[in-house]
Structures are given as structure tokens and as C-alpha cells.
């Protein structure tokens, strides 16, 4: 047997679509950058100047990371994320089921539910928080409410998409054995989506934890509110201390969450 190199069939040319779209993206980006007045030279110049914010990073306040009040703010952030995620997850499972064909044979309620959820999803979490601050006042409550709606939007969407692809066999079996609709959902559908659903809930918890840092900027409680406090006072070294601490918390939580999610699916 000789080792003559194998000849591959002619390599397909990239489709005109791919070429056109890529070019279009580059042009679009450049045009956008020019319209907002972005320039690299300006960026380098700004970074070179001594500014108090950058100086704060050098003099980062390690003490602020563990101060009593920061600890309380962190705890509040975690509590907000836990409550918002849990409440959102609880209502999301039935809503996801009722907004898909397997879970809801009635077209009109199904479409209404889907549309409602699309509207909820179209509103960003920060806007939810702003609205609830106006509605119920400053504090952790509007934050929790915002996270609740945001969680619902995320989990319902992901779970409903998963539901569209499940195995119909067990559903047929449950129907044929005389199960009621709800019994069928519980025994034939929920076990199929439970791992994916749990994974979405954990993912949503990560999102909520990160979001809660921003929610405070509009007065919706948690660590964000304390970050905003130092920002207002121009106390940059303490601000950076909090940001670093928050970064560490997020990294640890994500690391744990990814580990758990990998086991689930």
C-alpha cells in the first residue's frame, strides 16, 4: 500500500450570503462608531490622564470589602436574588406548560399567555426596577419584584422552548391509561423537562445576582445601592472595594452553578 496523499473534493466557496453579511457587519460597526464619536486616539488620551476613578482602583479599600454595612448589603443582594428567583421559578413552570401545545389544548389562552410573556420579556430588568421604585418606594421590595418578573420572562421562555421538543410517546401512554390532563403533565411531561428547567433556574439566579448590582442604582436595594452611595460621594477607593468583592461573589456563585448545571443535563 502506498501512502499517496488523498485528494479531497474541491472545497466549496463561501456563500455570497456569508461574504455579504460579514462585510455588512464591518461597515455597520464603523458607521455606528463614527456617529457616536468614538475614536481610539481619544480613548488612549483619556486613559493616560490621571483621574480620580482610576486612582481609586490603585488605593482600593480592602477594609470596605468586609465592613459591617457592606456585609449587610451583600446579604440583601443575595436574599433579593434568592427570593426573586424562587418566586419566579415557581410561577414559571405552570405558565411555561400552559403556553405550549402539549400543556394547553386551547389556542387562544395559549397565544394570550405567550404574548403576555413576550411583553414581560421585552421590558429590561432595570426598567422594571425603576417602575417598581415609583410604585412601592425605594428599598429591597421593588428590587425583588423586578427580579421576579425578569426571572419569569427568562425561565418561561427557555422552558417553553424545551417543551416544544419533548418525546410525545409518554404523553400518548398517559392519555391511553385514562390519566387526566394535569396528571399527564405531571407524570409524562414534567419528568422530561425537570433537568433542563432546574438548570434554567440556576442560570437565572446568576443573572439575577448580577442584575441586583445594577438595580441599586435606581434605588431598588442591595449592594448596588451602596455602590451608588459611594459613587455619589466620589469615594472611589471604597467603591472599587465593593466592586471587587461583588466580582468575587459572582465568580464563586457562577462556578458553583456551572458545576451543578453540568451534572443536571
Amino acid at each position, binding site marked *: 500500500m502506498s501512502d499517496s496523499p488523498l485528494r479531497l473534493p474541491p472545497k466549496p466557496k463561501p456563500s455570497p450570503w456569508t461574504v455579504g453579511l460579514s462585510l455588512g457587519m464591518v461597515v455597520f460597526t464603523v458607521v455606528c462608531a463614527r456617529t457616536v464619536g468614538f475614536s481610539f486616539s481619544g480613548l488612549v488620551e483619556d486613559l493616560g490622564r490621571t483621574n480620580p476613578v482610576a486612582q481609586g482602583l490603585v488605593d482600593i479599600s480592602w477594609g470596605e470589602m468586609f465592613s459591617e454595612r457592606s456585609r449587610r448589603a451583600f446579604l440583601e443582594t443575595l436574599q433579593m436574588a434568592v427570593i426573586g428567583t424562587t418566586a419566579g421559578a415557581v410561577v414559571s413552570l405552570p405558565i411555561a406548560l400552559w403556553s405550549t401545545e402539549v400543556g394547553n389544548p386551547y389556542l387562544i389562552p395559549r397565544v394570550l399567555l405567550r404574548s403576555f410573556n413576550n411583553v414581560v420579556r421585552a421590558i429590561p430588568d432595570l426598567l422594571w426596577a425603576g417602575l417598581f421604585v415609583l410604585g412601592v418606594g425605594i428599598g429591597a421590595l421593588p428590587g425583588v419584584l423586578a427580579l421576579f418578573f425578569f426571572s419569569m420572562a427568562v425561565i418561561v421562555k427557555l422552558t417553553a422552548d424545551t417543551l416544544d421538543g419533548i*418525546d410525545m*410517546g*409518554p404523553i*400518548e*401512554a*398517559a*392519555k*391511553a*391509561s*385514562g*390519566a*387526566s390532563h*394535569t*396528571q399527564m403533565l*405531571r*407524570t*409524562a411531561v414534567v*419528568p*422530561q423537562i*425537570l*433537568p433542563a428547567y432546574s438548570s434554567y433556574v440556576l442560570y437565572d439566579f446568576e443573572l439575577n445576582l448580577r442584575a441586583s448590582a445594577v438595580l441599586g442604582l435606581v434605588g431598588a436595594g442591595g449592594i448596588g445601592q451602596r455602590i451608588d452611595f459611594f459613587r455619589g460621594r466620589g469615594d472611589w477607593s471604597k467603591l472599587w472595594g465593593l466592586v471587587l468583592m461583588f466580582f468575587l461573589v459572582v465568580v464563586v456563585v457562577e462556578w458553583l452553578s456551572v458545576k451543578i448545571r453540568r451534572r443536571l443535563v
Partner: protein
Amino acid sequence: MIRFDKASVTYPGGVVAMKDLDLEIGDGEFVVIVGLSGAGKSTLIRAINGLVPLTSGGLDVNGHDVPNLSAKGRRQLRAEVGMIFQGFNLVDRTTVLNNVLMGRLPRVPLWRTLIGKYPDEDIQIAAKALDRVEILDRAYVRATNLSGGQRQRVGIARALAQEPKIVLADEPVASLDPPTSHVVMKYLQQISRDLGITTIVNLHFLDLATAYADRIIGLRNGELVFDGPGSEADEHTFRDIYGRSLTADDTMAKQAAL
């Protein structure tokens, strides 16, 4: 007793899958339905538990007037009729026991289903069903971790857990190899004999049909073309049912030899 009375099924689109069928199946019979692909075997089986509605004619199943049932009445009928599927239709991610307990759903209150806590007597019934197909030791194994033959035995146990008067099996061995097919057919036959359950099985292979059927029903284009004891059916009978000469594909033994 099951009685079709001038029963017809026309699917949306116009395919006539059952045409003026008159048929009576007595309690405890073991009936095998044969016919070419598209002859209407699945339609006949699914009409019995109301999965496919008749477009005209009558159908009485153990006193249930199938074409005129309410949603509740249909669930009550289905509770009395176990069903076994070609693709097993098990929930892969849950345990064998939970799959079998699905057969108990019509007798279990909703709140118990929701929290997944079944009464002890229902668990006992499920265990007995698993024991009958000799797979009780796998009760807490996930359904994914079973072989095809074991999965179909779980499918049988699920139907048995309903304590049914009738068992319907739509090509129950079509996804299994020949030795496993015989094992599954023997369980079905034995259960029918021991418990007096009326059993109706769709089969693809003629040698399997003659080996296990008390009575063979032949369908062609939605019409009854043969009805007689399994012992009476020979090659000529099948040629009549199929409207063509037989090939190696029609018998499991010959196909396995290919």
C-alpha cells in the same frame, strides 16, 4: 365484549382507514390483527380506546358506547383498557416503578399525583405487575438503563397495573430482535390466559401471528378480509389477506436468516 357495528373511520384528508367493519371480540380472547402497512390495523386498535374517533357506525366496549362518550366517560373507558406501544413510550428519565404507576393514575387523587406520593396499595399493584413480567428487581432503575426487551416488559407492566379487562398492543415487538420478540409475546399470551384479559395485538410477522393467536383477523384497505382461528391460517390465507405472494420479509424466522 367488543362490538364494532358498521364502523368506519375516514381521516381528515380523505383516507378511509376503516370501512363498514362488523366485528365481535369476546371476553378473554387473544386476537392477532394482520395486514399490509396502511391496511388500518393501528386505526382499529386505537378506535377501541377512543384515541381515534369513528366517523360513522357504532362501537361498544364492555358497555361503553365509545362514539358518544363524554371526556370523563372516555377516561373511565381508558382506565379499563391497557395499551402497549411499538416504541414503548416510557418516560426515560424516571424510574421503572414510576412508569408502571402511570397505570394507576385514574384511581389516584390529583394531589397525590402532584407530590408524587402514591398510596401503598397502588405501589403493591405496580410491584405485582412488575413481578409478573419478572423485572421487579429493576423497580428503582431509570427506564433509560434497560434493554429493549426489558423496556417492553415495563410497558406490559404499566398496562397490567391498570388491572385492565382489555389489553391493546400496537406492533409490540417491531423494535425487538427475534428471541426477545418471543419472550414478549409469551408474556402477553400468559397474562391473557392467567388473568382472562382480552388481548388484541397487531403483528407484522405471519409466523409470530400463527404461533400465538387464538384468532386471526385479516385487514385490507380498511376492510375485514379474514377472520378465523390461528390454526386455520396458512400461506394461502395470508396470500389472500395481502393480495400478493409472500416474501422473506413477512416471516420473522426467514427475515432473521437473511
